[in-house]
């Protein structure tokens, strides 16, 4: 990938969003009213007596009475029928380099049309998109976009993928799966950026619809998940295992927060688990914590901490370990596990050069795991 290709992509992205983003920003919508929300019946729930329901989407298993919403705030029990309030209600619509998700081994150097609706089923104190993940749909400006409209927007400008990202896409799983199906018909792939807090059955269905999943493994102890995420670690590990054993491509991000989840022993334990459960080819990104949301006043992660974490994970046998959120760091590059040559050179989410031919290092012929075309 050369600079020329990147500039071509950027120009294409500009044209593409001329239609999409311009329609979003030409008449900025006001925060929604209740009547603006969708009324599409949700999947993954069971009806209970007295018009109660139990949500089966995520491990919280919210049990809801009439007119109550789940923890995510975007799924509501209306008279015993569970509905999703955000089907087709797009609050964020951008074009990003796929490296920004980050996917480093999935169509590198290409733009991804990125969409999100409101909502999340955990409550990370360090969320970087809290304005849309930690609020109710009524509080956020959104635009109606059918699954077909999103797929068409991507296909018309030849974006190879649509990313469901920014918030927690599993809470809008119905919309995501319908969009992914529409996109697949147009040869556009779908990638998911998720916290992995999802039950096995919906995940199984999702993995049939999408092509790649990046899971944010936010820590490696239940204590961390309890204190800083308000979620469960075990289901996330189960989800990673399930993705790793599916045809979908898997990458893992571990956000390193100084003193909270950065002990070397913990990093080694996590890396060992990845090696044993999903294999050494799965890319792991040690991402730099930047002060956000409720932890806005904490120091960012020292780069040396990330470098030590990377060394530890490589030492545990992982082949592709990256340092993230540190633009220009050499560990943004992909190195061939066979000869050590740089096979993909990156700079701040952008690909400068690739040395991969048909999935192999162009110098030594070693197979580089990933989805390259």
């Amino acid at each position, binding site marked *: 990938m050369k600079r020329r290709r990147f500039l071509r992509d950027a120009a294409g992205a500009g044209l593409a969003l001329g239609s999409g*983003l311009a329609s979003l920003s030409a008449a*900025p919508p*006001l925060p929604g009213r209740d009547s603006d929300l969708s009324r599409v019946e949700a999947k993954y729930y069971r009806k209970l007596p007295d018009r109660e329901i139990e949500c089966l989407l995520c491990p919280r298993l919210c049990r809801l009475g009439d007119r109550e919403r789940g923890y995510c705030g975007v799924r509501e029990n209306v008279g015993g029928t569970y509905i999703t309030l955000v089907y087709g209600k797009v609050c*964020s619509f951008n074009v990003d380099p796929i490296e920004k998700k980050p996917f480093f081994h999935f169509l590198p150097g290409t733009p991804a049309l990125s969409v999100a609706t409101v909502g999340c089923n955990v409550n990370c104190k360090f969320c970087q998109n809290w304005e849309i993940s930690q609020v109710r749909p009524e509080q956020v400006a959104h635009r109606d976009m059918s699954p077909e409209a999103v797929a068409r927007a991507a296909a018309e400008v030849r974006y190879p993928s649509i990313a469901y990202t*920014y918030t927690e896409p599993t809470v809008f799983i119905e919309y995501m799966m319908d969009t992914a199906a529409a996109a697949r018909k147009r040869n556009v792939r779908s990638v998911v950026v998720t916290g992995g807090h999802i039950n096995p059955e919906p995940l199984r269905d999702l993995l049939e619809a999408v092509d790649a999943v990046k899971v944010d493994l936010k820590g490696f102890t239940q204590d961390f998940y309890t204190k800083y995420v308000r979620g469960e670690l075990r289901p996330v590990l189960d989800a990673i295992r399930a993705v790793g054993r599916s045809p979908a491509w898997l990458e893992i991000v571990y956000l390193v927060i100084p003193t909270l989840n950065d002990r070397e022993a913990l990093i080694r334990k996590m890396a060992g688990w990845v090696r044993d459960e999903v294999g050494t080819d799965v890319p792991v990104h040690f991402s730099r914590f930047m002060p956000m949301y409720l*932890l806005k006043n904490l120091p960012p992660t020292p*780069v040396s901490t990330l470098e030590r974490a990377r060394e530890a994970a490589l030492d545990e046998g992982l082949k592709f370990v990256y340092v993230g959120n540190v633009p220009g760091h050499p560990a943004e590059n992909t190195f061939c596990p066979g000869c050590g040559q740089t096979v993909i050179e990156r700079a701040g989410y*952008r690909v400068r050069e690739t040395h991969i031919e048909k999935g192999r290092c162009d110098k030594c012929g070693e197979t580089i795991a990933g989805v390259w075309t």
Partner: protein
Amino acid sequence: MRRDDRGRLDLSSALPAFLLGFMAASFQLYLLREFSAHFFGNELVFGLFLGSWLLWGGLGSLARPGSRLPPGGLAVPYSLIIMAFFSGLALLRFSHRLMGTLPGEMTGLAPALAFAFVLAFLLSFPLGHFFVLNSGLLGGNVPRVYFLESLGAATSGLLVHFLLVPRSSNWEGGAAIAAAAVALILIGLKPAKGRPLLAAALALSAAVAWLDLPSQKAAWRPLTLVEAEDTPYGKLQVIRTADQVSLLSNGLPLFSSPDPAGAEESVHFALLQRTGLRRVLLIGGGASGGAAEVLKYPGAGLDCVELDPAVIRLAEKHLTAEEFAPLRDPRVRVVIRDGRAFLEGSPGGYDAILLDLPEPATAQVNRYYTREFFLEVRSKLAPGGVFSFRVPSAENYISPDLARFLACLNATLRDVFEEVLAVPGANCVFLASEEPLSLDPAALAGAIDRLGVRSRYFSPEMLSARLHPARVGDLTSRIREAPARINRDLVPVSYYFHSILWAGRFSGLESGLLRSLARVPASRALDVPLVAFAVILAVLALARRGPGARYLIPVAGMGFTSILVEMAVLVAFQAAFGYVYGKVVLLLTAFMAGLAVGSGLGQIRERASAADLIMVQAGFLSLLVAARAALGTSGPEAGPYLLLLAFGSLGGFLFVVASRLHLKASSHLGLGYGVDLLGSFLGVVVASALIIPLWGIPALLSRLTALNALLLAFVLVTSLLPARKARPSFLKRPPWP
């Protein structure tokens, strides 16, 4: 001062009331400084604390009007209040542990309110009640207690400002005040009882001073605090994580080092706009890498201005020699001065002025983001010069609250500069100039090549991603379409919009409430209550109510007016002269000294009459008219001090006169004091958080003038209409000689 039978000064009778003011003022000040540091002191939080303090103080002086001194005199309660003060300091220091949050984690208004209420209940409630006890001790001579208390407060203010704040931490200063109070009690009162408690308070003072740094280290775990320093400008704390150093001021990050991406972002978007840079001004941020980035431009000389010398000192001590080296470069001139004051005195001619300060979250910082400051910047730029600053934004969704905050800054810039651009991203970088600017990634990438600027983050690839036309267009349209108001020195609305953003992080009702208030016009918010107040006054006057209404309503009005004027003066003063944080104590001391002078003069008068009230009320009105006229003019720095001194004098005089008149018919010694504090409570809550930022100081002073005109009319009418005969009451028989 009262003299005994032999004509000697009667210290033992005067000292308790003096000590009351001495301890109350300094304890409040130190707790407020600590409170600001632990709850990221914006004006909302500041108002909560001061409001709670005044409310509980008022309630304390209203409680149990017939109280008598406990056996053993005041030594025991004063010792206990010292211990309560230390408990308050410890409670604040470990507040995060009590809340189950991380040190540095943001907390909302509800926890801040809870802590403010608990602290004020612990301290201000008993202190308020001690006013009643002291009045009883002095035979019901409330004016004398008020005078002595004001004198004590003014004395402690001078002591804290000139001696303690420049040389000691908050805990050390508080401990010194407490130790001094214990010594004065022991020497001046020679108490027969309570000596063990006093000894314990003294020992605790020593322990608190010694435990300051260790307790901060303990509170910051699991992070590693390596050094802390309380300066006149805030609490500075150095946190080390591996090889990275972070400096925080009042709990808010000033910078982390190394942070090349942050330093590059704050400098290069602006400097890449022009070639042939000769002179650059950097306000803040020099120690965090900004200076090093500026020096990458060939031929560029840099003036680097920092307000607090301790920031440079701590940076030199904790950064590596390489990181600190740019500040020793011969091309760099480091100036320790308020950035705005420096700019006003500078001959100008800068090719670029870069502001690298925290966002306008408080009135203190807001003055770097106002129209008046931008005008000053424009006048000090060379032709075609560029001005730049950055504020936190959001990468993927510009919420209506964020859009309104950014729109306010954008509109203020546009009001001054011909060309204004905004760079999207997690931080929004604003660029402004009189000449065209560019966010064309190719042009900026070309400039990087041409100028030979070697950077880690600024690359053609990064520029293309960040300056994607769709992202730039989206941000621009969101900002332009949001309702925008101009941020001014005297109408600092930007920090109100920032308060909404801050409150939006928490699930309480505060953000909705703040949003709603932002939509209320000044005419409705300020004039409707004023009209309602006029009606109430008219009813009370015509109903010829007794002394309670006649004499205490002006006292409440005085409390309300005084605190609002204090707040307005603090904001206007810092806009005009800068560096107010270090002089808050001195300004408030001027007011306290005024109270002492006024109440002293009031005592000298043989008899109090309604004519005195009329005279004082007319004085308030004249001062308000003068203050309104002086707004925005460049008077001497002594002006605000004199204004507060005059307000305090009139307030002290009014309190003495009104109390005397009221006490002719009532034995409730704390009623006047309580009413004064409750009036102040109401004022501080509405002023700091709402009126000043939303509707501005000119609107505030106009309404205060109208309010005091109403009060003048009230005292005039009530002096002409005799009160109806009051019903008998147990309060009507004064028990004091």
